[in-house]
């Protein structure tokens, strides 16, 4: 017991004195979780929540341009700055100079085009109903498109979703005009208010429900993804500290000296692992507490903990143990400290990239998703996704637990065989 306590104390002291290791294990992931969550959250809000700032130049000579502007304004999704008489070059310069991502030019004959289309459709409908015998041929006009200027930094998916929004407003505008024309043809001056209200108020709504096994509706947001993702990254980055320490102790003769002492070498190694497992848990708790208490203070979503506490503990411990086992394996197999630090750090960055820490796996090509299955970080993240985003049922955690268990066992076996070959065991 005395030996165990002494070894744990010594390991804890070594960790506390490793300033570079502490920076890499605590400060770097904390900085990353702040930056990435802020970036992700603002992107998320830009397309889904808050108003997107748009410059609108209305060249339309009719009323439809104003109607479209009114629809965009009332949607609550856009913050409009309406201008007239701006050249294309001026609009583009405005995007570059002002902090704006989008600008729309409504063409001169916008109303004319919409009116002609609406009249054409109305005529066709009336002819179909047998109300009209013939269709008045509309004069040909040169079609002018609505032009969307964008800042080149705007990602394609955001641009696409904004274009879709504008298309849906255009559709609404056209439908309104067709309805108006139909009533006009039937001798009414306006569409009855009751029908207008009915049309706009009783639309079929889209209700979004995230799949969950717990029955509770989880909250997919930047915090729920980034807190576990960067905690896992932090845990695995201990390879630089733990792996490096093992190589150092092997090369400087400390391990050899330990073998000349009547003490089990496994005690030394397992104490080291236990201390670093505690480090991993403290990383998880630290970043978790930041998500729960600091994020809301800077207007980021609060981290919502899943209800299955037992599953969190198991996934956290297995993830921590996987990180520790990987670091020990690197430490035991590396020939120099530089090799352990370099290979360890680069391998974790690659594992993180293919494992979905930076970009969710589903956004990757299929072959990369398959390659990502070998990353232990992928399985750790998968486990936390099940807990934080899908309700955390044990059944869904099965594959994660099996993979992590096998990964830990594999690493420990390699370490045992290598150290046995070197007569440490």
């Amino acid at each position, binding site marked *: 017991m*005395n*030996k165990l306590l002494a070894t744990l*104390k*010594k390991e804890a*002291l070594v960790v506390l*004195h490793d300033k570079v290791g502490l920076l890499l294990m605590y400060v770097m992931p904390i900085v990353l979780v702040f930056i990435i969550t802020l970036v992700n959250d603002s992107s998320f809000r830009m397309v889904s929540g808050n108003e997107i700032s748009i410059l609108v130049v209305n060249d339309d000579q009719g009323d439809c341009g104003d109607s479209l502007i009114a629809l965009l304004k009332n949607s609550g999704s856009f913050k409009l700055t309406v201008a007239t008489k701006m050249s294309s070059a001026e609009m583009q310069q405005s995007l570059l100079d002002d902090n704006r991502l989008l600008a729309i030019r409504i063409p001169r004959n916008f109303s004319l085009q919409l009116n002609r289309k609406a009249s054409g459709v109305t005529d066709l409908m009336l002819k179909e109903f047998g109300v009209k015998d013939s269709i008045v041929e509309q004069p040909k006009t040169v079609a002018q498109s609505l032009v969307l200027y964008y800042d080149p930094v705007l990602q394609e998916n955001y641009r696409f979703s904004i274009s879709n929004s504008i298309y849906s407003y255009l559709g609404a505008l056209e439908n309104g005009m067709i309805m108006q024309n139909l009533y006009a043809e039937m001798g009414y001056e306006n569409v009855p208010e009751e029908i207008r209200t009915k049309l706009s108020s009783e639309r079929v709504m889209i209700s979004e429900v995230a799949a969950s096994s717990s029955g509770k509706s989880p909250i997919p947001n930047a915090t729920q993804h980034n807190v576990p993702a960067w905690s896992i990254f932090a845990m695995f980055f201990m390879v630089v500290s733990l792996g490096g320490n093992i190589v150092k102790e092997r090369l400087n003769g400390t391990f050899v000296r330990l*073998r*000349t*002492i009547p003490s089990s070498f496994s005690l030394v190694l397992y104490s080291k692992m236990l201390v670093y497992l505690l480090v991993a848990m403290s990383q998880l708790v630290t970043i978790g507490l930041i998500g729960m208490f600091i994020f809301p203070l800077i207007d980021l979503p609060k981290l919502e903990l899943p209800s299955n506490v037992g599953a969190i503990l198991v996934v956290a411990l297995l993830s921590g143990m996987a990180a520790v086992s990987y670091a020990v394996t690197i430490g035991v197999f590396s020939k120099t400290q530089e090799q352990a630090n370099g290979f360890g750090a680069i391998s974790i960055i690659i594992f993180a990239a293919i494992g979905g820490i930076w970009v969710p796996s589903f956004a990757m090509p299929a072959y990369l998703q398959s390659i990502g299955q070998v990353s232990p970080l992928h399985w750790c993240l998968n486990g936390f996704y099940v807990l934080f985003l899908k309700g955390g049922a044990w059944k869904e955690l099965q594959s994660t637990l099996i993979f992590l268990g096998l990964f830990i066992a594999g690493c420990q076996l390699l370490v045992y065989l290598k150290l046995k070959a070197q007569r440490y065991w």
Partner: protein
Amino acid sequence: MSTIIEINRLSIQFKGSEQKNLDELSFEVLKGEKFGVFGPNGAGKTTLISILCGLVVPDSGSVTYSIYQTQEKVNQVLGEIGYVPQEYAFYPELSPVQNLEYFGALYKIPKIERKERIAELLKVLGLQSVANKKINTFSGGMKRRVNLAIGIINNPKILFLDEPTVGVDVQSKMAIMHYLEGLNKQGTTIIYTSHHLKEAEEFCDRILLMDHGKMIALDRLQSLLIEHNEVDLESFFIKLTGSEYRD
């Protein structure tokens, strides 16, 4: 003096080695003596000490200790052995006290006794003023003394020293050798390797000269010098092992 270690026909050949690293080596170390092991690079000194400390298993032959009684294997007497490797085998980010506390605990030395022993070692090895400072700020001589202190924290009956004074200043060397003399007077058997032949000449009771894994001479220094008609250990060493490079 009675025998404390009996080495009997010890042989080993490492993978990739063209010849045996130790070849049928047999000799005895006597209780309480200062036993010097010398030889050029690649002679097999470190391999021999590694086998004696239980770090390497020989292909054939045996090592028998007689510390408690007779016929003990090395793993039965590890608690009575001290090992001071050539490398700085400690935790440089910790202080001498923290290192000594840790290694002392591994030897199961009771807490009070451990504290007393640590205080004594720090005092006699001149490390009191830096007892709680990080070792990685120390000079080479101070690090050597810490390395030695850890190797003798358990008050060993047999102490193996592999180049204990390499790279240290004269003052540190004197302090170390003086302490080792004192330790030996208290009954500790010392097995010592060094390239400082002058130092060895003054320190060792008996000398084992090895080359190519074989014993080429073993006796008291004066007897060897008379037998081979030489004036000092260095000329004797060159005479028996040659003057060509052994890199």
